[in-house]
């Protein structure tokens, strides 16, 4: 599976670059940083059925950092939720694939997100819903490191722990960069693991969140916490723009940046190891 997952990550990365390159601009940095996580969740961890995206009792992913929509769409397309050709409609007028996730537009999207902090609370609500329905589902949530500056994240963290929502597994995409500067310079969220521990969560730190094997092991570990009475936070130390060197090099400028079709082709060659 792991070789396969690496190949899947390459496919997802290429599709992200293709659709953002086709459009010319996008949140490329924060899409590329979560590719390994999305591959592990949708191709290994989650109980889902692409033929039945609203299946009762399915596991759900809520991407609270909604601007990673293109990465989720590329993953869903690779998983068979819709035709890959649709990825080229990203952010075109009338598209089903808007820059930020929309549950009413996109097959397979479980929650509308984009106003930072809110999606995480929605995930907590879904985890509570699953507990009440006793359907055995696991709710996964992805939050950004910059997003963790939102007070609502910590309101939700407190509630999830107080209500013992151990069916909630959250991830921080800790790529250390946000729009204006580094997270440390803007309003530092460190020590992040201590904060989540203090809020009563299990915390798993992944040294390289862009190593699919490490991510896979962490998700398996987190699933082992279900039944413990405490939710789990997996902190993924990632690289914003991971896998495309000229995007990585942009640093803080890669949050939302222009990508030409030629840039995309160059990126794809690098991802495919043809450069």
């Amino acid at each position: 599976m792991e070789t396969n997952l690496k190949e899947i990550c390459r496919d997802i990365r290429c599709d992200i670059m293709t659709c953002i390159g086709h459009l010319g601009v996008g949140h490329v940095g924060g899409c590329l940083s979560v590719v390994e996580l999305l591959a592990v969740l949708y191709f290994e961890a989650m109980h889902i059925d692409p033929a039945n995206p609203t299946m009762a009792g399915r596991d759900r992913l809520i991407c609270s950092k909604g601007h990673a929509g293109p990465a989720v769409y590329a993953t869903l397309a690779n998983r068979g939720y819709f035709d890959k050709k649709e990825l080229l409609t990203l952010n075109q007028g009338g598209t089903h694939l808007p820059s930020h996730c929309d549950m009413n537009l996109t097959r397979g999207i479980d929650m509308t997100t984009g106003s930072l902090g809110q999606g995480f609370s929605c995930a907590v609500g879904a985890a509570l819903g699953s507990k009440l329905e006793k359907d055995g589902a696991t709710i996964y949530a992805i939050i950004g490191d910059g997003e963790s500056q939102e007070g609502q994240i910590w309101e939700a963290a407190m509630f999830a722990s107080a209500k013992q929502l151990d069916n909630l597994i959250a991830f921080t995409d800790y790529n250390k960069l946000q729009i204006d500067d580094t997270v440390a310079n803007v309003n530092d969220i460190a020590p992040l693991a201590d904060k989540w521990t203090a809020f009563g969560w299990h915390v798993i730190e992944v040294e390289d969140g862009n190593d699919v094997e490490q991510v896979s092991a962490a998700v398996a570990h987190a699933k082992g916490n279900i039944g413990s009475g405490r939710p789990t936070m997996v902190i993924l130390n990632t690289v914003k723009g991971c896998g495309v060197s000229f995007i990585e090099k942009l640093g803080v400028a890669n949050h939302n940046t222009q990508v030409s079709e030629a840039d995309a082709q160059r990126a794809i060659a690098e991802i495919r190891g043809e450069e």
Partner: protein
Amino acid sequence: MEMRAVYANCLAELMEKDRHVCVLDADLAKASGTRGLYEKFPEQMFDCGIAEQNMASIAAGLASYGFKPWIESFTPFATRRICDQIAISIAYAKQNVKIVGTDPGISAELNGGTHMSMEDIGVVRSIPGIVIFEPVDAVQLRAAMPVLNDYPGCVYVRLFRKELPDVFPADYKFNLFKADTLREGTDLSIFVSGLPTVDVLTAAGQLAGEGISCDVINVHTIKPIDKETVLASARKTGAVLTVENHNVIGGLHSAVLETLAQEKIPVCAVGVPDRFGEVGKLPYLRKTMGMTVEDIVAAAKGAAALK
């Protein structure tokens, strides 16, 4: 019976019938009258603590799971404080969440300016897809609750908590999208919502004695406003007065003006004159804001004279 007791009893009936109906609080269950329901419905009552933003988005998450959550707080914290959560987690995401704001406008009394929402209708009314309902008595609230619960979308309920005199008869038939004519007249249309309705009826009685006959129409649903009834009455009488426990900007007055924008009909207002609240009891606050029966009578005469 206090309005909050009627509300809580109705919620209990709804929760009894449907385990997907649930209530979320932000440490004001006692104020909303629902604290007593926690023991009976432990899997349907959730206190989120003093974290209204989280409460609103959790409700959206529960709604996405097929639940029918009601969230409650004082009006300012149920609307302006969580405006973005209402707009995005609930309205934009099309989640079936009911929002209940208690102590609207001057009824916050001794809690004063910080707890007085003069702008909540304006805040919510400018977000697409939300129904805004303000009950005027226990009869109407009791009739409305099952209808609101069954309505498959977001509703903002602006709820006065304490006892109110009955305006409607026991056999009242409620239609969420139709305004109720309480009194018929020919000289002036008075559109009123919520708390001042009783005062408007008193004023209309006095005006009749002075030869001014008024249509008195309770606009319980401010959005979508019942355009048909508003237009028909305004065209019949040729002059309009709106009366509301809210800023005259953004609430009922604005909704009526928008409805009558193409008509050559004068529209006057009684309501909070674009200012913040302050501490005081209702009689003091009515006087301070220009919302007494005498103010309503004077404004009605002024409106009728503009014809």
